[in-house]
């Protein structure tokens, strides 16, 4: 009989057995409706043909491929948090490992589904195994994604075993906990009794898996990038793609993790578990990944810009000022906002709020001014400001003004964000998740529409593709909802273990550091 801490019993175990409220059913119904819409559209596509999508020659891959790369990228959240942080012994990871591992598994399932949706002949899926050719990057991908999926399923399940045993032993009586759920926990707990040998084995298995899964995760997104980089298509044939995709994957994974853990914290009221410490530390990682991502993006585009090759340069030009410019600059702006929202409030001194510039009111005013400037800038026929200014000069002035307004708004909102680290993290995470989807789009589509010996094409996703994207997101959400209705959102035993370590540490007496004044005196040889 395993005992649970009364705090965990109240916050993590009992809510699992509470009858689901109307909000839960409403959410499930809404998600099911979107999934049903997607299923209908897929059936239509299956019967009529892939012509129902917006894809054409030469844009042979579209939103499905973008979604595939995006979801597999998101799946890197789990590896980063549970494996890397576990190996390095970062204590603060404990309350968020479960959410991270769940993201990994579900994102991988939804991501793999995108490939099946994208296939012209899904009925021949097994040919990949029966007639697989190891020379093809798609087969590398099949191997690495399958390994990663099995690995992450194991990795989700292993730390769940002690929790399942706790649930088995602490579930309420029959009317509240139905018999099938008791059986479910009892079977899945695999006879866990929590004795010494079992703990030793589990710890060993988890550490082996943690080390094993890191190279697998790196290989997964590297190989996805190699699907593109091993072709000779303009803009894809680049050696930076492997690391660039891995960094982007971890980056978007942290973004998804921020959103998921905030949702869990809010809905289940887990403020005591997922505290500001988690947000602060994960935020630091987020800032670092943002910087690395920006560096790689710059490096990738610089080599194309400097080379000016006849086939490659039109791809870059279409992103910088052509038809893909809105998406490209929106991506950069979103990443910039994510960076600002996390970095500037940290740099701001606590007393900054006394300066009148640092007020939400000021931020609103400057943001409004920025919106008006932007509206004037993008309007097709801008009215001349003054006869003295040429059109080009007034445009330049407007861009400068826009930048000034945006910086003003950013400064004004900073103290507000500093007081709300959770909100700031969620804003940054939302920006990054959307920005990373756009990044995948900006890599896949411009290259395909600018093929070498085919007229430049236009790619517009159709309703089928939009429906299937929405349904994929809904499926991802539904899996989350059901999983956390059945299993604890926070790893009970890992948090309990953390408490023990914390308590043991608090007993150790660390000598208080000398004050600076004493140090200063001592430098002159004076002891006080």
């Amino acid at each position: 009989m395993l005992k649970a801490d009364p705090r965990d019993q109240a916050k993590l175990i009992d809510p699992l057995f509470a009858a689901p409220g109307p909000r839960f059913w409403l959410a499930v119904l809404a998600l099911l409706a979107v999934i049903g819409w997607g299923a209908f559209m897929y059936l239509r596509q299956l019967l009529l043909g892939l012509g129902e999508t917006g894809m054409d020659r030469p844009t042979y891959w579209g939103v499905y491929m973008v979604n595939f790369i995006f979801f597999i990228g998101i799946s890197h959240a789990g590896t980063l948090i549970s494996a890397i942080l576990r190996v390095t012994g970062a204590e603060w990871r404990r309350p968020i490992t479960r959410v991270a591992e769940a993201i990994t598994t579900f994102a991988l399932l939804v991501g793999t589904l995108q490939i099946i949706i994208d296939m012209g002949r899904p009925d021949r899926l097994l040919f990949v195994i029966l007639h697989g050719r190891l020379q093809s990057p798609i087969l590398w991908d099949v191997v690495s994604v399958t390994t990663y999926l099995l690995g992450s399923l194991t990795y989700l399940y292993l730390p769940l075993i002690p929790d399942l045993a706790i649930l088995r032993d602490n579930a309420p009586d029959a009317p509240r906990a139905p018999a099938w759920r008791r059986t479910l926990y009892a079977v899945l707990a695999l006879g866990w009794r929590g004795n010494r040998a079992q703990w030793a084995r589990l710890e060993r298995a988890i550490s082996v898996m943690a080390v094993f899964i890191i190279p697998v995760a790196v290989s997964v997104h590297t190989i996805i990038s190699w699907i593109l980089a091993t072709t000779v298509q303009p803009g894809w044939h680049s050696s930076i793609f492997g690391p660039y995709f891995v960094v982007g994957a971890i980056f978007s994974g942290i973004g998804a993790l921020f959103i998921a853990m905030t949702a869990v914290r809010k809905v289940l009221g887990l403020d005591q578990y997922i505290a500001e410490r988690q947000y602060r530390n994960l935020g630091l990682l987020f800032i670092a990944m943002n910087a690395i991502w920006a560096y790689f993006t710059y490096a990738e585009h610089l080599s194309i810009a400097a080379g000016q090759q006849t086939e490659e340069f039109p791809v870059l030009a279409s992103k910088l000022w052509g038809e893909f410019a809105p998406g490209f600059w929106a991506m950069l702006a979103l990443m910039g906002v994510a960076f600002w929202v996390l970095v500037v409030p940290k740099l701001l001194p606590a007393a900054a709020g006394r300066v009148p510039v640092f007020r939400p009111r000021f931020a609103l005013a400057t943001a409004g001014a920025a919106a008006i400037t932007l509206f004037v800038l993008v309007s097709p026929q801008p009215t001349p400001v003054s006869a003295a200014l040429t059109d080009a000069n007034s445009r330049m002035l407007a861009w400068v003004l826009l930048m000034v307004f945006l910086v003003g708004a950013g400064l004004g909102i900073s103290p507000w964000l500093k007081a709300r680290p959770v909100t700031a993290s969620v804003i940054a995470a939302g920006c990054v998740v959307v920005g990373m989807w756009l990044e995948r789009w900006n890599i896949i589509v411009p290259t395909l529409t600018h093929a070498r010996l085919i007229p430049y094409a236009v790619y517009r996703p159709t309703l089928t593709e939009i429906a299937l994207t929405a349904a994929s997101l809904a499926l991802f959400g539904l899996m989350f909802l059901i999983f956390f209705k059945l299993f604890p959102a926070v790893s009970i035993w890992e948090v309990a273990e953390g408490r023990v370590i914390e308590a043991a540490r608090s007993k150790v007496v660390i000598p208080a550091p000398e004050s600076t004044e004493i140090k200063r005196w001592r430098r002159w040889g004076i002891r006080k």
Partner: protein
Amino acid sequence: MRWSMVIDLDKCVGCQGCSIACRFENNTPAVKPSEALKGRAVRWNDVFPLPVNPTEETGDYPNVKTRYLTRPCMHCDNPPCVKVCPVQATFKNEEGLVQQNYARCIGCRFCTVACPYGVRYFNWYAPEWEGDLAGYLNPDRIEGGGVLEGPAVRPKGVVEKCTFCIHRLQKARARAQAEGRPFRADEYVPACVQTCTGKARFFGDLDDPNSTVSLLAKSPRAFRLLEEVGTHPKVIYLREG
């Protein structure tokens, strides 16, 4: 044998006869105009202007010179499409022809993305023929490795491409065998070569140093498309002028 095609651009009149001959020889369906506008037309043998995408440097009407190229599959010696196919649905046979197995293709479209020439086509919908055309399809049914290939009507969701009329090759071989004599390389040409109005197309065996294609390949006018991507095409063009 190493089958190869030489296209003399000086003789090509841009009549698109090769494109039409190919369509009827290989049962490629004509798609609806709305589909063709989306770029979904299937032309195993395409006639297109060069440069494909005009820039400021190529000039504006009337100060512009447009050249036309005709483009079958290049049947590369180092085909990028074969390298990326996950199920060996496309492969290079021992005579250098890049073949397509419709019964194997899973429709992932990696080959269409990898081919720098854009000569591989995907069946977005099931093929349809207007009116009586459906009754006049090429009835040649040939098998390679136990499955139908060449002009056999393709199902939706698979990739197809120019085969250098591989069914004609098989028929010519069978005839030589039936007549009890060795098969000669000049007994077979693809439909586009046979129909070419300006007699601009030549076909033959590149391994034979005295064949027409071998001699023409040595011409100073000879060039290949996108030589810089390292695919080593076996379709050789002779420059104009």
